């Protein structure tokens, strides 16, 4: 199996998992327990927190709250919009987008910034929506469907200049450990997820600038400084830290992966339309086969030994992607045939070429049959 659906989830990092499992097997205690074992579990978790923090942030400025997934981290962040209006983009993952739609019921006006032709958001368009009543701005770092990358540092700076009191959040699930990035002081909240970098499903985290006030959406035993109650997923957290450590080392692979992406595109260009921008995340190549159904191509490819995505796995029950539609450049016939190829550091050139050839073959076969 050539696995090219890494933006949906990554194969678990076996070394990280066995290291985490061993520690967890020995120190399975509840981290809140007030005896030695509990403290030991707590200590392991704090080491993991520190290690994850240091990956992209200055631990003097930021802390990190563990959650059950990226979606929970996004929901926690968006729930900080308490009044006035909140601004986001049309290119958000459903976790942010749907949370914004919920704001209306709480008396907050959601505003959606249109996308540029490459799927990113321009500072002018974003700033046009921000005013003195804006309480929260949320912009995705790397889009999960197109790979379009937003310059989060510049956007945050511009937003804060216009309204210094609003909270700036970014969904970094597809960017964390994949794009060279340090959290600037203008970003207040930043969501990440373990299973996109070789960790386990069921663990996410929210980076928080220490001076940014945050309120929980789950109440209970007061874990995570009262910001996220619920017994901590120690195994998932340890594994997240180890996996991210290994994954970050592969950041040097970025250039090689960008080459793979272009190599693949060279093979596909005759039969597909390119949706991913040239300067987007090197890990994502989204293309469309006009007049075909992406989902059918996806299954044809899976049966030939290649796993790729269509649009976003989370929204693939809907026929056409909301995000790709928002770009406004493509008609429905194109959007029905979308395939998303997402690479990992493990992807080889040989696999890339083979997968691209199979994709081309499947597209041609589809056209012949249907």
């Amino acid at each position, binding site marked *: 199996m050539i696995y090219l659906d890494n933006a949906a989830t990554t194969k678990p990092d076996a070394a990280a998992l066995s290291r985490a499992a061993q520690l967890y097997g020995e120190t399975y205690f509840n981290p809140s327990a007030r005896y030695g074992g509990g403290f030991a579990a707590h200590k392991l978790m704090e080491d993991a927190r520190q290690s994850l923090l240091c990956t992209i942030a200055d631990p003097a400025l930021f802390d990190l709250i563990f959650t059950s997934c990226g979606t929970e981290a996004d929901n926690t962040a968006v729930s900080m919009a308490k009044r006035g209006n909140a601004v986001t983009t049309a290119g958000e993952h459903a976790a942010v987008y749907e949370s914004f739609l919920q704001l209306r019921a709480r008396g907050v006006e959601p505003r959606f910034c249109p996308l540029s032709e490459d799927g990113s958001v321009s500072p002018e368009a974003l700033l046009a929506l921000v005013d003195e009543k804006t309480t929260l701005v949320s912009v995705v770092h790397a889009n999960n469907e197109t790979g379009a990358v937003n310059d989060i540092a510049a956007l945050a700076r511009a937003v804060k200049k216009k309204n210094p009191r609003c909270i700036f959040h970014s969904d970094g699930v597809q960017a964390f450990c994949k794009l060279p990035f340090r959290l600037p002081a203008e970003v207040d909240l930043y969501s990440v997820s373990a299973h996109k970098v070789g960790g386990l499903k069921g663990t996410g985290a929210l980076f928080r600038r220490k001076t940014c006030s945050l309120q929980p959406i789950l109440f209970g035993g007061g874990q995570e400084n009262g910001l996220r109650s619920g017994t901590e997923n120690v195994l998932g957290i340890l594994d997240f830290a180890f996996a991210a450590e290994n994954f970050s080392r592969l950041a040097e692979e970025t250039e090689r992966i960008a080459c793979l992406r272009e190599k693949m595109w060279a093979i596909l260009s005759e039969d597909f339309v390119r949706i991913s921008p040239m300067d987007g995340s090197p890990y994502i190549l989204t293309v469309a086969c006009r007049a075909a*159904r992406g*989902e*059918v191509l996806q*299954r*044809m490819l899976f049966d030939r030994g290649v796993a790729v995505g269509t649009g976003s796995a989370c929204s693939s029950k809907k026929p056409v992607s909301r995000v790709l539609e928002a770009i406004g450049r493509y008609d429905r016939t194109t959007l029905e045939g979308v395939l998303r190829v997402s690479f990992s550091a493990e992807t080889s050139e040989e696999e890339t070429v083979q997968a691209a050839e199979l994709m081309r073959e499947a597209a041609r076969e589809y056209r012949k*049959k*249907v």
Partner: protein
Amino acid sequence: MEKVIIIRYAEIHLKGKNRGFFEHALATNLEKSLKGYRHELHRLSGRYLIEKFDETRAEEIAFRVSRVFGVRSYSVGYLTGSELDEMYAAVRLVAPETGSFKVETHRGYKQYPMTSMEISAAIGGRLLSERKALRVDVHTPENYVYIDVRERGNALVFGSFEDGEGGMPVGTSGKGLLMISGGIDSPVAGHMMAKRGLTVELLHFHSYPYTNEGAKEKVVQLARLLSPYTQVTELTTVKVTHIQEEIHRKCAAELNVTLLRRFMFRIAERIALRRGLSCLVTGESLAQVASQTMEGLTSSNAVVTLPVLRPLIGFDKEEIIERAKKIGTFETSILPYEDCCTVFLPEHPATRPKLDYIEREEGKLEIEALVDEALGSVERITL
């Protein structure tokens, strides 16, 4: 004293000399529906009694019983000794705390020292003196307490009659093959035919990779929801992808669905005959969609000799939906997965295709070879 479920059966008493056959089928089906539950099933005259089960699971067992065709009504009650004190102890468990009531006694054991009226009076009197908020009303009581004095010093005590599904025990009216899609109608059609005692086996057509595993999984779920009624534990699937591709490539687009349905009927009949099933069952309803016009139905019937039962033929969609909700398949039926036809669906399907036109178009295909190929893709999924 022990908790029991009393089961009364429907229609079976009409069947004269065949009574034993029907009773046996009902008992077999009750046993099947209670598979996995510790219990004993005993036959009394005109009734069945479920005993020796885990009393904390009485509700689950009663729910299963309520879905077995042939059960007219059932009651959860107590089997107790027939001494007055013993019966009263059970009555206390089923009797209401407030409101009006009536005790109704049936005395099957005629040698019992008291008459039915005397038993009712004695039990009712004790209950009245203990529960001050109760009053007797023998004409229109809000609640009943039923006592059934039986032979060998036993009595059954219960508080209400619950409706069963009625109908005939599955397996007493032959066997058929239901063509089940992922939609709302076909599970309802299967339910209706099973209610008349037909053993309903299930056949589903898919066109992977144009349809996905989700669509197939949805049919498996529907089949599981049907199985408490139908007792069927298997789903057969057949892949018709190549047939659809060939029709699409060679025949008039407006006949896509008509032609595919004729293939489905042919395949279904071959499978039915192989398994000794004597009819096909579909969820078609006259004029509901383009392929369900009189001409559409005729064109499907023309390729088979087995009778095709269409229990929903005269139903409105709303009526079908109501039934689907009642039997519990509706929620699953409306899950958003595409079933067989949609990828190749023509924009304007023919609603009144003439048979000679259909046959002319179909003549462009290798019918037998395609049917054989599809039959080679049969998969049997255990539910």
